[in-house]
């Protein structure tokens, strides 16, 4: 028979679930950065002399666009390792 789950175990399990769902937010920046890299490759193909300038601009834009995925990573790490919801029990 299914015994009861202790409330501490329940909160830990839901924190782990929330951490997994939070990382779904990394789909967006991965998709967008791939499109940006494709456009950079197209621009290099059109004008090969400007390659280093185009590469620098692309790396700068991609690192800024990656920020929202970093925010979701921080939420997931805080849920897993700091476990703030346990203190509300």
């Amino acid at each position, binding site marked *: 028979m299914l015994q009861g789950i202790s409330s501490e175990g329940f909160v830990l399990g839901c924190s782990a679930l929330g951490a997994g769902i939070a990382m779904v937010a990394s789909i967006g920046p991965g998709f967008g950065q791939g499109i940006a890299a494709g456009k950079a490759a197209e621009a290099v193909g059109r004008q090969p002399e400007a390659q280093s300038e185009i590469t620098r601009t692309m790396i*700068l834009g991609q690192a800024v666009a990656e920020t929202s995925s970093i*925010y979701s990573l921080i939420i997931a*790490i805080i849920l897993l390792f700091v476990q703030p919801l346990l203190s509300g029990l």
Partner: protein
Amino acid sequence: MEIQLFIDENQIIIPNTIVNTVIAGIILSILAITAVHKAKKADIDEPPSGFMNLIEIMVESINNMVVSNMGERNIKFAPFILTLISFLVVSNLSGLFTIVSPTSDYSVTLTLALIVFFTIQYNKIKSQGGMLGYMKGFAKPYAVMTPINIISEIANPVSMSFRLFGNIMSGTLIMGMLYSALGYFAPLITPVLHLYFDIFSGVLQAFIFTMLTMVFINNAT
């Protein structure tokens, strides 16, 4: 290594990342004193060699980046930018030498972002003519956009600090988990990950932080 001080009965613990900030500062100071010492003895007419060559490459490339990103009038920020980028490169790469990276602690990255934030606000006050002009600058295109302008000003240090912290700390965390999971067989897989997380990501994040600083200061002056 963390430092524990005992004053009477109270105990003060200085965390290991803060101690490593001081260690990074000591390394950079030794480099700077050596550079000045060699620069005094160098001959101006000969091309530089060895250590002086490296220092000249760094200074020249930072000067070119500052002039091309911020214009001629902002050349006075070049020493600040060089300090920022060399501190970030040394502290991000210290994960390779078993020194816990200082930037994997949110206090350090928040401090760096706040230094840049106050520099930007001070330069805005100076260039827009005192406190009155500065406050009117927030209502610039239309008066209803004032809260949006204020939020976008505050979002800059928050996003810069979180970007640096998230990248470096996630690298440290993943490497730590891999080493403790694989134990004896770790050197089969971890060198490639060290190459990506410590070297590539560390230098790239230092570069991004510095470029964003230059762009924001350029907008503020």
